[in-house]
């Protein structure tokens, strides 16, 4: 209860002060609109926002699925072969440390000219991949040594070892990384839309750019709200799954 009530109260206090400040000091709406005006902008154009949100969500989820599959497979490869890990891990780090905003234009040129969504998914994948790889690798390495010996003693096949030991051990690590990578994929998708510029993409970021060009600040805030809401849903969605998975373990 506390976990919901306290942030809600804090939000209410901030919004109330914001509303009061803008009205009392007559702040121009192209500088800072009131929360009620933002809400209006959101409600009035709900179908449009919904469509844009779906587009962004699609990119985010596609990138996240690709990042999960590739992250899990590479982590498995790393756990099976030290040589494979030593060869590829530095490149995975390069992916992580190179700012995505600097890479995005290249990706757009290479694959985005005829299909901007494909470029968006790749850019979002670039940022979502590493946390999954790193966490999944750590998860696979955290296997209980005694249990592992027991699997050997009882003649487990490689598939049994993966299904009954490695996967359940690493699953909480994977879910923890999905909470991070979900948000990162969303950021990656938004960055891609920003870089692609107006007229190409149909997602929330493009709506924000469009509103900014027209100085419709309340619409920019409405788009931001949608993005924050999506990020929250992704984060708490994975948190809920995580709680469900680990509920018996502690």
């Amino acid at each position, binding site marked *: 209860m506390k976990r919901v009530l306290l942030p809600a109260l804090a939000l209410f206090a901030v919004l109330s002060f914001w509303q009061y400040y803008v009205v009392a000091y007559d702040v121009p709406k192209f500088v800072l609109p009131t929360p009620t005006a933002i809400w209006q902008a959101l409600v009035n154009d709900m179908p449009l926002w919904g469509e844009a949100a779906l587009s962004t969500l699609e990119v985010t989820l596609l990138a996240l699925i690709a990042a999960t599959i590739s992250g899990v497979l590479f982590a498995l490869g790393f756990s099976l072969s030290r040589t494979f890990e030593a060869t590829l891990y530095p490149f995975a780090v390069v992916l992580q440390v190179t700012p995505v905003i600097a890479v995005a234009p290249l990706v757009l040129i290479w694959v985005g000219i005829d299909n901007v969504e494909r470029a968006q998914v790749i850019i979002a994948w670039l940022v979502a991949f590493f946390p999954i790889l790193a966490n999944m690798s750590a998860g696979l390495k955290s296997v*209980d040594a*005694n*249990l592992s*010996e*027991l*699997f*050997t*003693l*009882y*003649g*487990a096949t490689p598939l*049994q070892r993966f299904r*009954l*030991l490695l996967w*359940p051990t690493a*699953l909480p690590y994977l879910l923890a990384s999905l909470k991070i990578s979900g948000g990162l994929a969303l950021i990656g998708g938004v960055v891609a839309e920003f870089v692609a510029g107006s007229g190409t993409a149909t997602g929330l970021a493009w709506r924000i750019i469009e509103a900014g060009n027209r100085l419709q600040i309340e619409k920019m805030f409405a788009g931001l709200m949608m993005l924050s809401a999506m990020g929250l849903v992704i984060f708490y969605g994975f948190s809920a799954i995580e709680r469900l998975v680990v509920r*018996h*373990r*502690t």
Partner: protein
Amino acid sequence: MLTLRDVSFAYQGGPKILDGFSMDLQENQIVSLLGPSGCGKSTVLRIVADLLVPDAGTVDWREEQNLAFVFQDHALMPWSSVDDNVALPGRLKGMIDQAAVASAIEAVGLDGLAARFPAALSGGQRMRASVARALAAKPSLLLMDEPFAALDEILRFQMNELLLDLRAERGFGVLFVTHSLYEAAYLSDLVLVMGEGRVEGSIAPKLDRALTAEQQRTSPEFLSAVQEIGAVMARETL
């Protein structure tokens, strides 16, 4: 049923852990390995279990016999119920014998708790579940690596009784690693005191199992076994 002769072992690049280690274990015998940390007790268990390959020497062991292993930390799968944990050996061999699983759970006194997860069990119950998992493998030889070391004294006594009862009911040999000379003296048909990678002394306590646990623990046979083991250990640590 198990014979080791002149077994030597060293981890890669390390000093010799075992150096000319020999022992025999007869059918249904409990043999304890006792000795200071790092003397190679656990290594012997792992060599018998074929988890480690000795550098020299022979391990004679009939292939058709079943082995089971019990670790000091219970090594249960936290994501599985007691039932599923106990069924693990069968599942890995591709045939779960539900009756054997149920009987193993009952034998360790966990009936009614089969649906629980390890986190919802006490330390003693977890160790019982771990023993049940070993029983479900229908072992002819049970390898136990300081299984009761993390339990308090009362629980340890209870688990000692349980092990003796199970051995009497089901019939299996036990190779038991422990730090406690009292536990070794009470449980074992043969106590092997180890030092520097080999057996330095062996003592065969002759307790009368027809007596109660209390009577056995205060019997002259028990006390003299403790003294004898103590004397060999003292000689080893000098």
